[in-house]
């Protein structure tokens, strides 16, 4: 589609230079806006369908709501053994724990890698970079055995404790990159004023790396909120279900006749991500542009 535009742009310029120059931005905008709408259409349609009576969902591919019904939300909220509030709270606990864990542990490791000299630094740094690319599947079976021996199945500990130990190494890398951009003269000045390593970290580096911390917090929020694999494995008691696990069991338990309430709860589960996206796009875009993490 886009090569087509480029090609026609070349052809058009040869024929009538001036007029194409005027039309070109318009054509590009139509193509871009069209693709954007096409991409988001299913999501918009889902939000609309969650407000429709069930039988209309299969008839109407449009996105106009004739009579607004929030019945789907009421039904969906109470469709499982626990009200949906419970799953939202469970997810909130896991997400908060993961954010605090990542912020504390990753920033500490990043400070050491970016500012301190120590034995075998290059080796550790290489291991840290490689661990970013390690598939979780290679460690999940023994991790499961370890956590089940510890009696942590059906608790949030297997989902939070690893974050306290900086296992999300891409955030370490992101923060290292950020700290490298902070002038070393600031460290020196603080040292002359009598700051030790911990003082420099807490009073100079941490306050200056707030953008990197925000990026980490927002990515951790979205990934943990979305995470399905590990939550599916560690949480089997419906009382402990997080939003994705609850949503999935909802899908399995119901027939296609209740698409409306299923969509309603899907929409509820996406709202926090959407809000995080709105508040944090600047950090998100910067985060992937500098490190390539998703």
């Amino acid at each position: 589609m886009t090569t087509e535009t480029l090609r026609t742009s070349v052809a058009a310029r040869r024929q009538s230079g001036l007029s194409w120059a005027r039309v070109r931005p318009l054509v590009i905008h139509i193509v871009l806006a069209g693709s954007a709408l096409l991409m988001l259409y299913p999501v918009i349609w889902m939000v609309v369908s969650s407000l429709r009576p069930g039988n209309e969902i299969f008839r109407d591919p449009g996105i106009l709501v004739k009579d607004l019904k929030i019945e789907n939300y009421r039904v969906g909220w109470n469709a499982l053994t626990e009200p949906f509030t419970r799953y939202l709270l469970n997810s909130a606990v896991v997400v908060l724990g993961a954010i605090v864990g990542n912020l504390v542990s990753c920033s500490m490791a990043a400070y050491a890698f970016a500012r301190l000299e120590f034995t075998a630094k290059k080796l550790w740094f290489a291991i840290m970079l490689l661990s970013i690319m390690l598939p979780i599947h290679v460690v999940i079976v023994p991790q499961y055995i370890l956590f089940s021996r510890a009696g942590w199945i059906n608790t949030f500990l297997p989902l939070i404790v690893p974050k306290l130990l900086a296992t999300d190494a891409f955030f370490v890398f992101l923060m290292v990159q950020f700290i490298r951009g902070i002038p070393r003269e600031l460290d020196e000045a603080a040292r002359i004023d009598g700051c030790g390593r911990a003082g420099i970290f807490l009073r100079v580096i941490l306050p200056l790396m707030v953008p990197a911390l925000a990026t980490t917090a927002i990515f951790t929020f979205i990934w943990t909120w979305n995470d399905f694999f590990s939550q599916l494995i560690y949480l089997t008691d419906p009382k402990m279900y997080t939003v994705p696990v609850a949503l999935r069991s909802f899908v399995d338990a119901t027939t296609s006749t209740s698409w409306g309430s299923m969509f309603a709860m899907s929409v509820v589960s996406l709202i926090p991500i959407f809000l995080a996206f709105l508040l944090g796009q600047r950090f998100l875009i910067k985060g992937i542009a500098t490190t390539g993490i998703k």
Partner: protein
Amino acid sequence: MSALSELGTLGRKKPPGQKKDNLAAYLFLAPWLLGLFAITIGPMLASLYLAFTDYNLIQAPEWIGLENFTRMLSDERLHNSLRVTFTYVFVSVPLQLTIALLLAVVLDRGVRGMAFYRSIFYLPSLLGSSVAIAVLWRQVFGTEGLFNQALSVIGIEGKGWISDPSTALGTLIVLNVWTFGSPMVIFLAGLRQIPAMYYEAASVDGAGVLRRFFSITLPLLTPIIFFNLVLQIIHAFQSFTQAFVVSGGSGGPSDSTMFFTLYLYDRGFGNFDMGYASAMAWFLLVIIGIFTAANFFASKYWVFYDD
């Protein structure tokens, strides 16, 4: 810029720096080191050991040598899961990257509202791995789904795309292509690095849009293309949630969406065949390792470094 290029520069000598500060450094690294050994390296070694055992979580692991691996040789479902995964990776990654690159180039050429479009195109990357979107996909490509409703508007009769083994994987490929926003943002960052004077010089020489794209943009962007390629391949090999939810956890219809990771989950956590699952996990690691190494090897021939 990236973790990959960072790895490449590790060997280079640095100017002599400050004196060593081992105690403080290792204290700061303590949480990460503990995690590395207790949650990553320890379990890796344990799973390597378990790969040579028969272990069901209740009885002690029994050493069976290479039996898990010979079993993999004759396991038809595993072969099928490899076929499914390879198809998914080989079709969706190039498609996703091509669209990401083309849109990045269009957006980079001073389109007004670029930041707005960038955000809109990026949004699906954040939503794509959620259960909610997988639920949506089930409906969209179902028999009475949105996609068929749209087709009927233009007079085409659809079918159950997800319930038909020949098209079910295709719907998951579409879902992965849909999340092209994150590689697109990386491409956009890369395009910013190309000096404008190259384009000006080429224009003076009379090079057209296509010529400039193929002679300037594409060669100078090869390190970023390479980076995206490596990352997206690693990522696609590990896809799980979408196939799991769309197929109701079964990898169906007829195992047509049985990703390698889904089969691994089925063996390990569905049947508690932990030894076999561990052997599969190591096999996956080796596959991903070979692909990454092959990518690095091939990159010598097509990736162009300006420095």
